[in-house]
């Protein structure tokens, strides 16, 4: 694993020592090379994990998330070039350093063996993200957004620290690989109910669960493009990944403790999808759509069947790529019109036809069109929740319909119709932007040819 971590750390000296006209080229190239190294991890020979050392391991769940993380860094760098072009050189380097630091911490989080190490790195990812949102965001609301982001996550995760330490006292070790084999049923008592709550709340806030999702629209809207990309694509998946890891230790309380969260998620996904239909702010629409998709992941993880775990993992990867692509598209609009209001930039298909093709593909994958991996994820989750309880099919079906509705609403509002007069002098699409969209879309489409690699450890 050091073969990925050390090069990522070394990206920081690379940015500080590069010449002015080479920083973007150097960092993007080398981060792409690092992502190619991480692809080798996808070759998992067995259901057991690949252990690299005492501290790092990768198994069929963390390998796709790791590949997604490393794939996204060059994409984030490509997306940030425009809005940083007017900043002084040192601030550009600082921005890239923040992104690189976040990347290193994320790689270590996804491959951590010891759960306390996972916790420390999970918390540590908050600091660079906070700095990116508050320092480089665009509106004054970003201060409030950073505070909400930091404090919601910290309030949820401090009980997790206490819970992990008390589990360590009970079982003697928090090494995840050992716990898989030592696992015993938690005795039934009040304190174990609170232990369950303490373990899960951190990830529920991060996912986010419907009642605790207030930080997400603020943070996503106020963050600069790289911040939005990394938040939507990876940081939310940290919550899902943590839940998938921790629920192995928390039986049998999950069978009855999960009900309130299942209800919140099932209702929440419909609520947030409906909110999307009434949004005027494009980034806010994509943010609420993230909440809706992640609610599906929460439902899948809490049901705890093999198919639902497969669906959760596939949905996390698919949503990561799709949501990041949608944010890039929204950002390309924002860079031209300096406004996130959807109706201000209508009829773009006439002006930017190739970008309209990317908008179409992104919206189609967002609404889970077959045979994309979004569909595979959603379908597995719907089927397993149907087997858990027949009535959920109504809610799931409603959600799929409303998702289709708002995705098409977003597509039609921005692309179709007559263009507004004030945007007939926007710049045409840059090659960089088209490359960005292509790099998002290609893995998404190629994965539908072999979804086995993203289906997680219950395949």
């Amino acid at each position, binding site marked *: 694993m050091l073969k990925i971590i050390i090069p990522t750390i070394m990206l920081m000296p690379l940015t500080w020592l590069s010449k002015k006209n080479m920083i973007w080229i150097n960092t993007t190239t080398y981060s792409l090379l690092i992502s190619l190294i991480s692809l080798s991890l996808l070759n998992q020979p067995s259901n057991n994990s690949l252990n690299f050392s005492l501290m790092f391991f990768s198994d069929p769940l963390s390998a796709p998330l790791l590949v997604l993380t490393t794939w996204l860094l060059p994409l984030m760098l490509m997306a940030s070039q425009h809005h940083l072009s007017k900043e002084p050189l040192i601030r550009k380097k600082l921005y890239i350093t923040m992104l690189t630091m976040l990347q290193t911490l994320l790689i270590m989080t996804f491959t951590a063996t010891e759960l306390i190490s996972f916790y420390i790195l999970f918390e540590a990812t908050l600091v660079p993200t906070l*700095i990116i949102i508050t320092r480089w965001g665009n509106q004054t609301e970003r201060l409030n957004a*950073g505070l909400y982001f930091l404090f919601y996550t910290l309030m949820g995760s401090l009980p997790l620290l206490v819970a992990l330490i008390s589990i360590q006292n009970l079982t003697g070790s928090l090494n995840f690989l050992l716990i898989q084999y030592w696992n015993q049923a938690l005795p039934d008592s009040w304190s174990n109910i609170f232990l369950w709550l303490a373990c899960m709340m951190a990830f529920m806030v991060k996912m986010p669960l419907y009642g605790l999702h207030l930080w997400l629209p603020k943070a996503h809207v106020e963050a600069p493009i790289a911040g939005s990309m990394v938040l939507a694509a990876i940081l939310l998946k940290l919550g899902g990944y943590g839940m998938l890891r921790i629920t192995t230790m928390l039986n049998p309380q999950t069978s009855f403790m999960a009900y309130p969260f299942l209800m919140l998620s099932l209702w929440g996904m419909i609520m947030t999808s409906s909110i999307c239909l009434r949004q005027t702010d494009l980034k806010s629409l994509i943010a609420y759509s993230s909440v809706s998709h992640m609610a599906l992941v929460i439902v899948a993880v809490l049901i705890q069947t093999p198919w639902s775990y497969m669906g959760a993992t596939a949905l996390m990867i698919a949503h990561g790529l799709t949501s990041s692509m949608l944010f890039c598209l929204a950002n390309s609009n924002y860079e031209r019109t300096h406004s996130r209001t959807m109706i201000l930039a209508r009829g773009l298909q006439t002006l930017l036809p190739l970008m309209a093709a990317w908008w179409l593909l992104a919206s189609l994958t967002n609404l889970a069109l077959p045979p994309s991996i979004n569909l595979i994820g959603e379908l597995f989750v719907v089927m397993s929740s149907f087997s858990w309880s027949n009535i959920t099919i109504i809610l799931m079906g409603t959600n799929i319909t409303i998702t289709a509705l708002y995705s098409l609403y977003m597509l039609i509002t921005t692309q179709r119709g007559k263009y507004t007069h004030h945007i007939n002098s926007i710049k045409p699409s840059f090659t960089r932007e088209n490359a960005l969209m292509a790099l998002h879309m290609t893995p998404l489409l190629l994965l539908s040819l072999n979804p086995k690699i993203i289906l997680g450890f219950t395949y």
Partner: protein
Amino acid sequence: MNPLIFTTILMTVLLGTMIVMMSSHWLMIWIGFEMNLLAIIPILMKKYNPRTMEASTKYFLTQATASMLLMMAIIINLMHSGQWTITKVFNPTASIIMTSALAMKLGLTPFHFWVPEVTQGISLTSGLILLTWQKLAPMSILYQISPSINLNILLTMAVLSILVGGWGGLNQTQLRKIMAYSSIAHMGWMTAVLVYNPTLTMLNMLIYIMMTLTMFMLFIHSSSTTTLSLSHTWNKTPLTTTLILITLLSMGGLPPLSGFMPKWMIIQELTKNNSIILPTLMAIMALLNLYFYMRLTYSTSLTMFPSTNNMKMKWQFETKRITLLPPLIVMSSLLLPLTPMLSILD
């Protein structure tokens, strides 16, 4: 002040604390405390104005009261045990009185009222000595009598201190008062784990002193005593804004900085001793502290304006020389991976 005299007085302060830390006779400890108190009054009053006079008087009165209480506890201990050696204090009355006296010296709730006002009234360097060096002597006595301290009183004082340190600092814009409330909260963390594992108290003291030293050095460097003047640092030395950010986040206890290490270890020790609600409560109340540190970072480093500064600029004097700032900054932010080396503190 004449440098020779200043050195003599400073050495007396140091000598007082050393006497406290190294004595085995209760009377010598009391003498050490008094020496410390009398010698630090001129240091607190380096500038001669009514505000410093008020601050020094408040400090003198509270510390003298605490010393008297300490003397009473020592005498009661003498009466019941018949000897003057420092061991754990067997008599419960003496133990409670001694704990209260030492809490008054440290600034634990409910004896915390002097800390913000005294810290505010004195200069930055004197405030530094007050908040770091002066805590060493009472903490060393608490360490030595730790097996006999009444747990209820100590834990109540600790939790209330964390609460007061958190809530009290929320309404402050003066940097010295913010550091005072942060000191109250950190003292609360330190005393909470004293009965369970005094080594962690020492660890927390060490890291707290490093972080507070760093913060004060950065404040002295930019000669700023209010949030407003701290927000000018991006005009003068932009690098210090990043350093202020890192150190403040470390004081708030965010991983992966070293300020997280004492909190993590203390939570671990408390959980091992089967108290689970207490560390959760303490950890959540530490978030209040983090909130006002974040507010400081917002005005200082995270919202650098690309335009000219909107606030009144101050005269920029020659940059003061700061001792040891780079090692301090490194130690106050990057020590977390060294946690397995804690065993050297025993």
